[in-house]
């Protein structure tokens, strides 16, 4: 666990600047079994201290891969010198952003640090799960079990705002199954299982995962008999994982204030209708629907206490996600979205737990209402650009014919423009599906969660 070497150094922060001093340890463990062969058994730890200094509209940053009094002094001085270099050459003369309410939030980290398990625990778990799959489903072409556990511990001291100390752990088991069609063509499907918490907390017995493996295998067998989707603009029921991905990729990124300044479509849509009245979208901080959010954030890396950011309210675009500098620029309130991945990374505007809010319809009614379309359930990746045009890879879905599910479909891709596609939403289910297995990539990686209900809408689907 990190010791506090930084809060006592606040007196050394340079006057006339905003300064952040952060110590951090990031750990991860990876186990991979490929058809029974252990190909990865790794443990990784990265730690150090960094400082960022804001002065007259520019930032200086520096980091060092050690954490002692000398390293703290060296990064504070180097960050100040870098800010001075930029200030001297650019002379932007921007004012300091408004001061933040100060305080502290120190989590009880003692118990979290006792959760690391012996390496054999992970291997044994993976081997037992792999053994179940190979014995129960011997005709599979291949199987992969991947265990991933990561955590980040941060100690933050800021010139104004909240000082904080916390640990954020996450663990997942990924199961990848491959079968062959009658023609010998491989088809694949995977499922992530897990969430916030250490491996020991989330996974006590491999047998508890068997039902999810059985469900995955059953879907794979349907996909093995699957058909190609027909290309074109279709009415679809978008599953909860996909509506969450839509919230993050196609809408969320366009309303990150740094991307708004970079020219995103949200720049000229604030206050305007961008979606159907049924759509509201929130980036939750730490609590959602009276429960802990999947990956809670309480204080960000600029020392701002985290609060929810309402982005779309009943179809109207009402806000952006900000850091302190962009919040000042846009005259908004920062909600605690500035986060850094490694000790050597500067805070960027990042999403946290981004979700479309549920509605009042039942999933069965959504499906029954589609005469000729698709029910799209799972994705392996998604991308969007600052125009809001998005692309999601679809790995599992079904035809809908006459209001009933038909054949499974093979891998395909869907696309649309978020602020146009969201206006076509005419039914929203009352369920909520969260996924927190992913990383968002925006210069740095960052664990994020996404969520949403099922949506009935129109998208363009790729296919033959």
């Amino acid at each position, binding site marked *: 666990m990190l010791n506090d070497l930084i809060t006592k150094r606040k007196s050394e922060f340079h006057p006339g600047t905003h300064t952040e001093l952060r110590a951090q340890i990031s750990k991860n463990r990876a186990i991979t079994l490929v058809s029974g062969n252990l190909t990865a058994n790794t443990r990784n730890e990265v730690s150090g201290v960094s400082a960022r200094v804001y002065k007259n509209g520019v930032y200086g940053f520096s980091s060092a891969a050690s954490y002692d009094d000398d390293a703290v002094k060296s990064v504070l001085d180097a960050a100040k010198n870098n800010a001075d270099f930029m200030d001297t050459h650019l002379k932007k003369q921007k004012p300091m952003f408004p001061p933040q309410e100060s305080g502290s939030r120190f989590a009880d980290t003692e118990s979290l640090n006792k959760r690391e398990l012996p390496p054999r625990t992970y291997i044994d778990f993976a081997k037992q799960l792999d053994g179940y799959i190979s014995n129960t489903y011997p005709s599979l072409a291949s199987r992969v079990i991947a265990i991933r556990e990561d955590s980040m511990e941060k100690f933050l001291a800021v010139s104004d705002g909240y000082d904080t100390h916390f640990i954020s752990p996450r663990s997942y088991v990924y199961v990848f199954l491959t079968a062959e069609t009658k023609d010998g063509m491989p088809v694949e499907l995977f499922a992530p299982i897990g969430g916030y918490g250490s491996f020991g907390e989330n996974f006590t017995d491999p047998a508890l995962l068997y039902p999810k493996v059985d469900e995955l295998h059953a879907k794979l067998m349907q996909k093995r008999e699957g058909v190609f989707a027909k290309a074109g603009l279709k009415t679809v029921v978008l599953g909860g994982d996909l509506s969450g991905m839509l919230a993050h990729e196609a809408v969320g990124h366009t309303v990150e204030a740094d991307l708004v300044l970079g020219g995103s479509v949200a720049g000229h849509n604030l206050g305007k209708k961008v979606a159907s009245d049924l759509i509201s979208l929130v980036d939750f901080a730490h609590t959602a629907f009276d429960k802990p959010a999947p990956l809670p954030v309480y204080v960000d890396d600029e020392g701002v206490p985290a609060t929810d950011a309402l982005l779309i309210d009943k179809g109207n675009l009402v806000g952006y996600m900000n850091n302190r500098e962009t919040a000042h620029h846009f005259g908004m309130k920062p909600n605690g979205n500035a986060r850094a991945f490694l000790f050597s990374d500067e805070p960027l505007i990042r999403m946290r737990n981004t979700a479309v809010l549920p509605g009042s319809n039942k999933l069965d009614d959504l499906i029954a209402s589609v005469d000729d379309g698709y029910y799209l359930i799972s994705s392996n990746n998604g991308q969007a*650009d600052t125009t809001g045009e998005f692309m999601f890879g679809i790995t599992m879905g079904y035809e809908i014919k006459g209001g009933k599910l038909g054949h499974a479909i093979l891998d395909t891709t869907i696309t649309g423009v978020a602020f146009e596609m969201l206006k076509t939403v005419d039914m929203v289910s009352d369920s909520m599906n969260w996924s927190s297995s992913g990383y968002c990539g925006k210069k740095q990686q960052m664990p994020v969660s996404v969520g949403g209900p099922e949506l009935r809408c129109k998208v363009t689907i790729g296919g033959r």
Partner: protein
Amino acid sequence: MEELTSKAALCLDLVKEKNIEKAFVSVSSREVNEFNVDGGEFSLFRTLFDNALSLTMYNAGRKGFVSLNRIDAASIKAAVESCADVSESSPPDPAWDIAPKGENGDFVKGCPTPDIPALFDRSKVFMANIAEDYPAIIIEQMIIKHIKSKSAYQNTNGVIYNTVSGKNVVEVMFSAHEGEKSSSFYGSGVSIDSLDKPFIELGTFREDFENIQKQVHTTPLEGKFTGTVVLPPQTLGGVLYVLLSNFCGDMSILNGTSLWKDMIGKKVADEKITLSLSPLDGRVVCGERFTSEGFRSENYDIIKDGALNSFMLSLYVANKTGRTRARNSSFNLIMAPGEKPIAEIIKGIDKGIIVGRLSGGDPGANGEFAGVAKNSFYVENGEIKHAISETMISGNLLELVKNLRGISKEVSCDGDSVLPYAVFDNVTISGK
């Protein structure tokens, strides 16, 4: 350098004290000086100092791996203990192995000494050039950095490599705007070992800015047809990466799902296609000099005149499957150019699109792909007509490389790869 070398030796001494015969270690230090531009303005100057220790051991065939960014003696000792602990949990597998003793090497790559004032000046001029020559372009983010690293690599068979390297990297993400209309964003970049040339003249920057300015006003394609796709170097590199990873990489060969698993020596692509992985090519900046297992890197052809020549296998998967390991572990991809200019090839296209960027899902093991053609243009009767939007392409990667229409004589070099334009027929193109 000597300090890193002695730390690597210390680490392997501690490994040997535990009677573990096979191990390799890399001890390195890194300094990064980086300028950032956000929303069209310089925003940040950061200086990073980091270290890395990565240790892999095969403890009676049981694999362990640890990595951390501390390289003091106490941390090295803890890393050895931790790695041994991890390895104890692994099942034994005789396929894990390391390189035998060969010729040791001291390598100096690129430009190890940073010139920060010159880098900043070049960056400011680049910003001014973009503003003056391409006024519709807004820089979403630009990262300009110098990366300097020193590393000491050793294995228990006596392999010793010492490397000092440095390079400058320029990466820019941008879009074009007119009022409330905008293009899709686009990313372009280069790795360079010299600051002699203005950045605007490097890689494909000018061509990219020019094309994106033409994409503010787009027209969706109507209907669906089978046509020709022109893949510019950057798009081609992405497509080939997915193709080769899916069908020549460790994972698909180990689990037996590669549809090319029995195709060595056989035709898998048009005979005009020759692809090599060549980290030692003079146009590659700071290319790999040795593999992680300790073998000296050599260039090799992965596809030669359309025939599959090699897989991209690690020593482990090669041993596991009775195949041959790849002669380097880089992805410095070089495609042999053609004889005609791209403009001439385009003149022969009846109906198709130039795919500036392909935003697609990860193709499955069967090679089926579908994606959105971003930053793209419609081509009809040999003429580039207009920029397009909301257009998808789909097909099968294995078929795509057999349906080659032509390869351009022009190539683009970004410091990592050297690629031409490639043009393929029989791709499904669907609009609204």
